[in-house]
């Protein structure tokens, strides 16, 4: 059972919500923690044990860290131990899943780094001790956010629990977000997955400039709609249970610079790395060289956030180069360029950089890059039994796939911008009553559409 399945949507979620609101307020956090554990157990019983062991160990380390404080060397040692444990857990599970060619257990990066962030805050005296294990467990393992976050700060989470007031308005908002996220995942991302696979399956020697551009663009859309779909569902599920989770993706594909893209794409992960790594390294306070190194380090870490793979590292580094350039020369040159040009530049850089993210090895990434620009080397093709130094611009197969999926791609382009949302907000101000009806209709259609795609 996953959050995008019928069993979750029709049974697990409503039953959990009814139980949650039916129990006395004092037991709600405990109830939600149990529900989260049951949800995880239904996906991976073994993964549940790993999660409980990891979060349990961090909980045990929290109290000494809090009591000893930052100045105590024992606290520093304990924090380093906790950091090593959580990072190792992520590295080992990510590598293990790659070696076994299986999917990584869900939520490892979320609960490990949520927990680590809390311990660092405790060490720095920026957080209070968790009231109970189940409250701490819920903070790390709330089932809605396990897929892609957002990563929360404990102070925000505990404040919400303290100030919790059940509200049908908030639940309603949660339902709307859930439906938006579900539609992104099952209508767009799943269809894009099929299209991306078809494009990937075109034999190497038949890959053309158009087919590789299309492949990379579809990969970007697929990643974006999957992650932002999960993120919206997480916020929606949070809303249904009275929790307010922050936005994690804010139209990254219409960013005006690569730096802007990073601040819109997986926002909470970016904040985490900025706060706990970039900030700790001195950010931009130690001169251009240190700034360059710090930026490269955090962009590479952001790449590794998605898995321990060399390609992700190179993806992060390739974007890091542009962020460094924007940081150093941005004020002088970049701000003078028209917005449209800035957006085009950003989009091209993002698409080209995703050649690394979307490929399975560095050589494949290089091949994609060369083909995107119409170049192929003899060295690469020699091993594949072909010849020729230039890739063809297009082939019948890529044109066929394009013609078969134009509506999907058009919907993805439209959904990747805030054109719809922005105009809807403007109309909401002018015609509030009419827009209520439109909103209800759209959400009903999204619900029906999602159900249809789930059974198709």
């Amino acid at each position, binding site marked *: *059972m996953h959050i995008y*399945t*019928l*069993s*979750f*949507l*029709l*049974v*697990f979620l*409503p039953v959990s*919500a009814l139980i949650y609101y039916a129990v006395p307020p004092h037991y709600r956090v405990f109830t939600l923690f149990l529900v989260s554990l049951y949800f995880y*157990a*239904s*996906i991976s*019983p073994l993964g549940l044990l790993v999660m409980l062991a990891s979060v349990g160990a961090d909980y045990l380390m929290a109290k000494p860290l809090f009591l000893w404080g930052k100045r105590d060397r024992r606290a520093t040692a304990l924090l380093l131990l906790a950091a090593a444990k959580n990072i190792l857990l992520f590295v080992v599970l990510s590598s293990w899943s790659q070696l076994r060619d299986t999917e990584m257990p869900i939520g490892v990066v979320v609960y490990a780094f949520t927990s680590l962030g809390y311990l660092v805050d405790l060490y720095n005296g920026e957080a209070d001790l968790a009231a109970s294990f189940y409250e701490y467990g819920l903070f790390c393992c709330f089932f809605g956010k396990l897929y892609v976050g957002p990563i929360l700060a404990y102070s925000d989470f505990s404040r919400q629990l303290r100030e919790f007031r059940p509200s*049908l*308005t908030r*639940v*309603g*908002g*949660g*339902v*709307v977000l859930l439906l938006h996220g579900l539609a992104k995942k099952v209508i767009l991302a799943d269809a894009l997955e099929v299209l991306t696979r078809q494009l990937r399956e075109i034999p190497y020697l038949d890959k053309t400039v158009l087919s590789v551009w299309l492949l990379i663009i579809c990969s970007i859309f697929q990643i974006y709609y999957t992650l932002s779909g999960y993120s919206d569902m997480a916020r929606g599920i949070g809303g*249904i249970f009275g929790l307010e989770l922050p936005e994690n993706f804010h139209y990254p594909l219409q960013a005006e610079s690569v730096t802007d893209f990073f601040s819109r794409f997986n926002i909470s992960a970016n904040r985490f790395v900025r706060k706990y790594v970039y900030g700790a390294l001195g950010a931009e306070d130690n001169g251009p060289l240190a700034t360059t190194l710090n930026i490269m380090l955090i962009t590479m870490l952001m790449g590794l956030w998605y898995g321990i793979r060399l390609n992700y590292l190179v993806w992060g580094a390739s974007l890091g180069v542009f962020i460094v350039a924007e940081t150093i020369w941005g004020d002088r040159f970049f701000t003078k360029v028209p917005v449209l040009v800035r957006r085009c530049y950003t989009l091209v850089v993002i698409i080209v950089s995703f050649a690394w993210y979307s490929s399975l090895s560095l050589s494949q990434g290089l091949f994609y890059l060369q083909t995107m620009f119409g170049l192929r080397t003899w060295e690469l093709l020699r091993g594949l039994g072909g010849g020729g130094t230039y890739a063809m611009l297009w082939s*019948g*197969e890529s*044109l*066929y796939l394009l*013609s*078969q*999926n*134009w*509506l*999907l791609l058009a919907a993805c382009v439209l959904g990747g911008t805030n054109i719809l949302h922005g105009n809807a907000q403007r109309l909401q101000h002018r015609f*509030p009553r009419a827009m*209520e009806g439109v*909103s*209800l209709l759209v959400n009903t259609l999204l*619900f*029906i*559409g999602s*159900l*249809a*795609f*789930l*059974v*198709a």
Partner: protein
Amino acid sequence: MSGKKKRVFPLGFLAVLAAIVIAAVAKDPAGAARVVRQGWDHPTVLGEQLEVFLGQNLPFREELRGMVLRLRLLGGSSEQNGVFLAGDGLIPNLTVTGDTTLHRGNTRQILAAMEETSSSAYLMLIPTACAIRQDRLPDHVPLYNQRGYIESTYKQFYGTASTVDAYNALLYSDSDYLYYRTEDNLTSQGGYALYQALAARLGFTARPLSQFEVSYDVHDYYGDLYRRWGYGGVRPDVIATYRDTRGTASQVLNWQRFTQRTYYTLYPREAAAAGEPADIILGGQAPRIEITTPGRRSSSLLVLGDRTALSYLPFLAGHYQKITFLDFSLLTASEIAAFDPDDYTQVLFAYSLDTYLNTEHPAKAGELGRSSAAE
């Protein structure tokens, strides 16, 4: 939404979810009870069981699936589940498994069987609709090169067997209705085109169409392909029968493992009435079909093939005293071993390219005649 409506919305949503689940349970209460029982015993599989149950019993399931297909068609996608919507009919795409050992094994075993027999051997590889009807498919669609494969395979049989050019026979046929619109098979018209190509090779003259009385026995026929497609927008098929005007009487033995039926016509209406409409031709697909036509010249033909044989066998009946058709996909090794190609004047291996490339059934030719060899 206003405050009041925002408050009503989640309650309405909850009521809709509850209504959907109640409707699903009402549709199959026994299935729901089974899910609960199994979920109680094995909580970890409850989610999977529930998912399957809801997927199968969701209210308006077929309408929702139709809606998705309609939306995909609207978005330019005329290919669904490997089937193209081409005009008013369906054409399955020929996808070929990457496992080349399958068709290499088929070629090897058929060659070996042909070399062992003293009877004249023939090979006919029949292209599928997506090769012959390319003009009806979307532009630029990538297709498997069926003509190229057939030509390269035929080269391996030079000197061992006579090959039958089914590709050109179908491509240049006068008929427009060679393949069923809703089934992955040749129509009787397609069968007639193959019969003409076969006649030139097997050593007799094909009868002109004027010597047959055409009767359209089954209307509004929807085949298996239609069910795979899962959405309307397709015209039903008509099954035509071609009866010899000279009044030649053939007897058909339609052998199934536990039943065998004898018909005194090539087109038994009772078979269609008792089973599928398509069973009107020779009583339908079977592991073994034997056609005997008294008074014909004393030659006999063993046909080793697949479902496509139903299209051309009725035309061949008038030229042989005995025709035995074997479908290896429906026979066991010992059943195949009981047949010796040497008992027949001619042996025809005739497979659709789909069967030849994607299954190992043709390779079972290696079993032929094993029983008599052992004796």
